């Protein structure tokens, strides 16, 4: 099937899933659902069809899986948020419109991405700048213990969500430029081969500053994510396992250091290891998440019939627990599968991308999104210590949703360029 028609069919399927979920939620409280559902269906169709037409026009040869997967996750997340807190749902629908708008805008206004690589240092500065915005007195806001928000006209925005994209752009641009140099080691320190510092320096500087800022803001999830992004990208760029190994060693040292020096890190780790020691207070959130998931069992309690609101931050960080409780192992597995498909599609886009920059950018952004999902779902499932990041496309939150749609637009744009390059010079490149 041609990618656009595949996309359309998948969107129809996804719409059906979302509408069925919405109707079943409505049925719990009211015996007859009428106008409400018609309006919801109407809005959904307009939104998805609109975006689909934009893709048809601006990126006709793009991958057909990415957008339907994102739409499915977004729609499912919306229904769960509506179930948890109707007042959040109305703002989430506004964020969704803005997110899809941003997605369309990127596709319509940016026909090509290769030029962005030239502005890599600008991107580095912009990324660090965005990260530091919440530290500006008067502008920054501390919400739930993390200084990662800024207040603009009554809205709380997390600039870090956008900084991640910008920094991924910097890394891609930098690494594509320097990868040969980084792959050669001309200096030996003990058993390690280390490339020339002048090639390596800007990278370490940007990484160091970014991580420092995140640690200062007590944003553990983002620091972990950004570091992972760095490792993934440098490995893809250089194919040298030594970077990953030394990165992991560095990470372990850093983790140990922050565990030793920061109370809040130590607390998180303690809760992770033994949440049931204090199920009513410190371990409350993660213990309730486990109870929530256990309640769901194989098929779930059904939307609107469980007690997912018992888990603190059910609509944001813990939304995967709510899905597991009310949609069961089957529903939660569907979400995991959607992320796996998304990640596979993203890497496929990356591997077939013609330009080195686009290849690296696509891989980086895909890894960013995939690891973000892993970090938060792993936190909910107690595979990792819980760190507060959103579940991409699913959790409540404007900054997260909009930035995810921008990532999606970049991936769609790159996949379209790939296909066009393929058509222009079919096969036999080597």
């Amino acid at each position, binding site marked *: 099937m041609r990618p656009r028609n595949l996309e359309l069919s998948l969107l129809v399927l996804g719409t059906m899933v979302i509408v069925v979920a919405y109707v079943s939620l409505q049925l719990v409280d009211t015996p007859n659902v009428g106008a409400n559902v018609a309006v919801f269906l109407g809005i959904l169709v307009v939104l998805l069809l609109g975006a689909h037409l934009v893709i048809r026009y601006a990126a006709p040869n793009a991958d057909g899986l990415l957008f339907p997967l994102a739409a499915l996750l977004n729609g499912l997340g919306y229904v769960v948020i509506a179930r948890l807190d109707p007042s959040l749902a109305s703002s989430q629908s506004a964020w969704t419109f803005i997110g899809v708008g941003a997605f369309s805008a990127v596709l319509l206004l940016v026909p090509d991405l290769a030029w962005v690589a030239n502005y890599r240092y600008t991107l580095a500065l912009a990324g660090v700048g965005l990260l530091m915005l919440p530290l500006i007195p008067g502008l920054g806001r501390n919400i739930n213990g993390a200084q990662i928000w800024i207040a603009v006209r009554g809205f709380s925005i997390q600039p870090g969500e956008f900084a991640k994209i910008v920094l991924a752009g910097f890394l891609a641009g930098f690494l594509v430029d320097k990868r040969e140099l980084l792959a050669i080691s001309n200096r030996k320190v003990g058993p390690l081969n280390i490339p020339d510092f002048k090639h390596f320096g800007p990278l370490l500087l940007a990484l160091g500053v970014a991580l420092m800022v995140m640690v200062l803001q007590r944003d553990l999830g983002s620091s972990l994510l950004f570091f992972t992004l760095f490792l993934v990208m440098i490995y893809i760029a250089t194919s040298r396992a030594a970077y990953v190994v030394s990165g992991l060693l560095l990470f372990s040292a850093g983790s140990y250091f922050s565990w030793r020096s920061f109370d809040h890190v130590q607390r998180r780790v303690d809760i992770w290891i033994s949440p049931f020691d204090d199920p009513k207070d410190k371990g409350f959130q993660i213990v309730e998440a*486990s*109870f929530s998931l256990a309640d*769901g069992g*194989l098929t779930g309690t059904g939307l609107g019939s469980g*007690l997912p609101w*018992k888990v603190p931050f059910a609509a944001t960080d813990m939304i995967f627990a709510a899905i*597991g409780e009310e949609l069961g192992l089957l529903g939660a*597995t569907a979400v995991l599968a959607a992320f796996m498909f998304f*990640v596979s599609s993203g890497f496929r886009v990356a591997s077939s991308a013609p330009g080195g920059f686009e290849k690296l950018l696509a891989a980086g952004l895909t890894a960013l999104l*995939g690891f973000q999902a892993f970090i938060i779902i792993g936190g909910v499932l107690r595979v990792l210590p819980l760190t507060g990041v959103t579940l991409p496309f699913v959790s409540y939150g404007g900054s997260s949703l909009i930035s995810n749609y921008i990532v999606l637009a970049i991936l769609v744009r790159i996949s379209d360029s790939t296909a066009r390059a393929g058509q222009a010079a079919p096969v036999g490149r080597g």
Partner: protein
Amino acid sequence: MVVLLGCFTLLFAQLNRVQLFDAEALENNPANTRAAQRDFDQERARILTSDGVEVAVSVLVDDGPFRWQRAYPHNDLYAHTAGYVSFTVGAEGAERSYDDEIVGRTAGQEIAELTNVLNPNSDPGSVILTLRHDLQQVAKQQLGERPGSVVALDPRTGAVLAMWSWPSFDPNTVANINSAESNEAYSALLETEGNPLRARAFRDIKPPGSTFKVITAAAALESGHATLDEPVFEATTSYTSPLTTHAISNFGGRECGGNLVELLVRSCNAPFAQLAAETLGPFIMVNQAEAAGFNSVPPFDLVGGVSSVYPTDYGAQLQSPSEVSPAGLFEDTPLLAQTAIGQNNVAATPLQMALMIAGVANNGIVPSPHVMAEVIDANGQVVDRIEPEPWRSTMREENARILQQALIEAGQRGSGTAATVEGLVVGVKTGTAQIGGDPPKSHAWIVGFAGRPGEEFEIAVAVLVEGEQADGDQTGGRVAGPIARELFTTYFSDTSG
């Protein structure tokens, strides 16, 4: 890519562990309150009075930890009977005793639900109490802000028609689904003077004073030591039992004597004390008190009732029964003399005293008391009905009729005139139990029954206005009598039509 796929596989494995393999252990974890919460968060059956007034309803709320909030439209009026249900502090009253019926968990209800599969109805049905809203309101209004209790029941069935105690409380506060507010309200009530949470009507015992003479008289009749006319007790002003110098005087130091009916009408102290101490003795007295329900917890359908106390140990026998003193003499015969008039260690709940007098009104049979009448399903079908059951056989019918006659006379010309109602047959016995203090204070009691001329007695009441906080000395006739009269009037004004 491979690493990420590995990560997701790990998540999938852990998801299976949490949702399937460890699920049961997690559900049974002591910290897991979800089962209790699910159980709690459902629409409960309405609780109605027998005259159809809503006493407890479930209200759907928009936000909060639960979808359903239980509401009690009459605030404190049914706090001690319908009770409350709170996720935080538990349940009391009918909400507690009939939880299964109220949430539709009984076998009968589940079968009814099965037959309704084709016509699913979310209506949880109703449970109907035996209480009457008009009588409950009268009880509350008449007692006012005086600590005490009012109990009215149908002597034939044990159906409680009114049960009110002051101080009471607003169950809406403790039933708040917000657990912090519920806890706070509950703690505040626990610290409130007089403990409003406590249903005094069946949980607190107080000396019943002269109302207990009905039992002493019954003991004399049942043991054959007295009949309607015989013996005629010599008129005296006081009685001093052997082994003590403490005299038991008649009220106001008056001379008092005559046949058993006369003793009850005039509420003589000295002859009753002498009767118990010298003629009846401990065994007959203990037997009769226990036949009326003392020393047992009444089989009431509200939880937490206590047994009323009649002392059973009078020490060693010092003298065998003789012609002069058929009772013999015991170490504690002076105590026995005091118990005959409801003093010393005798103590009863208002519910017990209502049951005692119901036994008289019901010709010797004390009924089992209950507040629940019927359980009705969504279609108005009766799923369950509480059948009347006798509790105690307290005396022969002929003796019950003698006591009825005596108490009717007490209502006409004795201390209970304040309780009589024109056009009705009313029998009452007052009680004024002195509890000391300076100036001396007393509990004011009245027990009684009423019926239409020539018909069965339909209502039995016990009223206690407690003495600790009373302004001055109060007597049963003056203080408790009018409350009984209002109950009788209201009861018959409503059913006469």
